[in-house]
């Protein structure tokens, strides 16, 4: 059958079609200028949700990567201090050994005393304004040298920090301890004043060298050797933690790169496709405009004289 096509109907239909083409055209232009596939919230809710989920994961991982940076910085400074601590103890050990072999250690006593002072200042190291060996009482000077009023050499220290551990979260269920509390590092398992107390043993070496008491010097030397081993272990432990954090950081970065790639796949506009679409829409727009101008031109009236 033949359908009547009145003029008004032609107008309405072609105007609607033209509007649609223009709308698609503007959408494609927006995609190209923003570089994003999804321009409005309602364009593709499923993809929008996916993008948001990727974005949340990436953000969270980035947060953990930044935490790992801070943790690494804190642990690295602890490691550096541990190395210099080891060097000082090594020097004290060799001075004690000289004292033992020559039976005349008096000369070394002064140097050991300065090593002791140096150790205390190392124990009070600050990083970004906080004492790294004070446990969690990071704003308190941890080691106070008890200088006797009489002017004799100081014998003991007071520990003003605590045994608190500082943990940082590097993932939903992974934490790293970034500090070594001063009491456990310097006093050891035996506690303050015991055979495992670094400062007490250095003090003992100094006093034995001063007094020439070889028996006491031998005991202090042996104890200090054990303490030196403990510092070495602590250094290795810190290094191990640092490596662990770096490995975690690398895997988080890799994971983020993957997530980012996935997100881009959903989010970013595919330029060749979009440009092709833009061309097609532009051609379609021109074609419909030209068709419309042809349709509106003529009716039978034009041919009746």
């Amino acid at each position, binding site marked *: 059958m033949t359908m009547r*096509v009145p003029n008004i*109907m032609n107008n*309405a239909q072609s105007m609607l079609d033209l509007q649609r083409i223009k709308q698609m055209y503007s959408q494609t232009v927006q995609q190209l200028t923003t570089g994003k596939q999804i321009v409005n*919230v309602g364009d593709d809710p499923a993809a929008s949700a996916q993008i948001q989920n990727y974005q949340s994961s990436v953000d969270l991982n980035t947060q953990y990567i*930044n935490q790992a940076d801070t943790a690494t910085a804190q642990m690295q400074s602890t490691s550096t201090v541990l190395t210099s601590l080891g060097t000082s103890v090594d020097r004290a050990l060799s001075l004690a050994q000289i004292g033992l072999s020559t039976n005349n250690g008096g000369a070394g006593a002064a140097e050991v005393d300065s090593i002791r002072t140096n150790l205390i200042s190392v124990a009070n190291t600050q990083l970004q304004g906080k004492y790294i060996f004070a446990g969690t009482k990071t704003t308190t000077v941890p080691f106070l040298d008890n200088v006797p009023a009489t002017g004799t050499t100081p014998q003991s220290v007071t520990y003003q920090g605590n045994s*608190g551990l500082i943990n*940082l979260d590097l993932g939903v269920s992974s934490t790293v301890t970034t500090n070594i509390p001063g009491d456990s590092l310097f006093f050891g398992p035996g506690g303050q004043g015991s055979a495992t107390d670094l400062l007490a043993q250095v003090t003992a070496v100094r006093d034995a060298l001063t007094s020439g008491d070889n028996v006491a010097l031998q005991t202090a030397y042996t104890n200090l050797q054990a303490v030196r081993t403990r510092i070495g272990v602590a250094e290795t432990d810190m290094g191990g933690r640092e490596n662990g954090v770096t490995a975690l950081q690398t895997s988080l970065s890799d994971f983020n790169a993957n997530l980012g790639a996935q997100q881009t796949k959903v989010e970013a506009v595919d330029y060749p496709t979009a440009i092709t679409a833009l061309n097609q829409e532009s051609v379609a727009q021109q074609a419909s405009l030209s068709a419309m101008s042809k349709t509106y031109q003529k009716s039978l009236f034009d041919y009746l004289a």
Partner: protein
Amino acid sequence: MANLTASLGIGLSGLQVAQESMSVIGHNIANINTPGYSQQSAVISTNPSQEFGNLVFGTGANVSTVGALRNQFLNLQVTQSLCNQSGAETRSNGIQAVASAFKDDGTNGLNTQVQKFFASIQTLAANPEDASLRQNVVGMAQSMLSEFKGASTTLTDQITSTNQQIGAAVPEINTLTTQIAALNTQISQQLHPDAANDSIDQRQQLTDKLASLVGIQVSTNSLNQYQITLDSGAATLVSGNTAYQMAVAADPLQGNNFKVSVISGATNTDVTGKITGGTLGANMDLRDNILPGYLASLNQIAGSLAGEVNKVNMAGYSLPSATTGLSTTGTLLFTGGMDPATGTVSVDPVTGKPVYAGIIENLKVNAAVVANPGLIAASSATGIAGDNANALKMAALQTKLLAVDTDNDGAGDSGPFSTVVNALMNNVGTQAQEFSTTATNQENLTTALQTQKSSVSGVDLDSSAAQLLAFQQGYQAAAHFISTISQLTSQLMQALG
């Protein structure tokens, strides 16, 4: 027997038929662009014949009626489709208007701000002694709140503007129903059914306009009058000669939103929420269901987040004072609508349920914390500056399950915050897409129906030209016939004279 005078009459009837038909064609052409116009056509019939003995002579032609070509069924379908189309378009536009508040480009947006707030706490956990990092937490908390407030304001503004549109639609609806009722009267008073062609077209046009404004159902009674009721059937707008007026009044029980009712004599029927189609129905849906739904979710998220953070902050200890070395126990981090005793959203004494409504407008970062960021309780022990255990707990809220109280019972029952925010954004997006798809589909349907309708009723210039030509020739021929008869008559006169 047929005589010359009678033949003149036949010629005259030919002239008249051609003239009247051309006048109908002229009317059609004049109305080619009149919206809703149905093309008319002259119905030509043969005059009664005269018998002379056993001979039967014709007496010419006449235009018996001027009929309009229309399909009433199609007309009503177009009306219905317009109703659905404008409903879906209005809903889609209303959602698009607020969609920008739920956009997240990774640098701005709700999710990003929530994430940045928790990131600032985690950074603080690495250096809880640091005053500038504490200041940063305060700053991030404030920008997170302003993001929430921005989204909430966009929604409330849109609700207000939707309400105004509801108020503005009613006078227009009343004008239309009054006009339709008046046309109903005119149409029913015409003795001849075809006499009211133009009024019928005009009424259809007004009915279509009315359908775009408000969801309606249309039926015709025995007098060819339109009976118009609301799409839910809740009230009648036009019945025969009578139009029932709609009225708006601010409803103090609904935050002074407009209540719409239909007045019928002494009865006043409340039709708020009882209209689905048209812009009015869609705006009611937007104002009372869709937008408040988004707002409620947003308030639940913000209220739950503030409550969770407060609870953890209250369990910890502040940064020790530089002078005394003493800490204070944790305070509220967020105030305004929050219960100082529990830290969570204040509970309605009557219902016993937390009051989330409007919480975003009230929420602010505790002024005491703004003045002294040291009050952020990073430490889990008193007097210890470097302890970060409580800050870690606070940062861990970011991934905590059962974070948001989505069912208003005071206990969390959802996934982590980011999931709930994403779900809300996804919900907005899905509804925006749903209504925009429906609107496009309805637009297609309306266009298809209108195409069909205009295929029946539209004026076509080509056929008008052809008809005009035919009647022009008919007129010329009839005129020629009259002139011939006239010549014959005068010849006869001369011969006899």
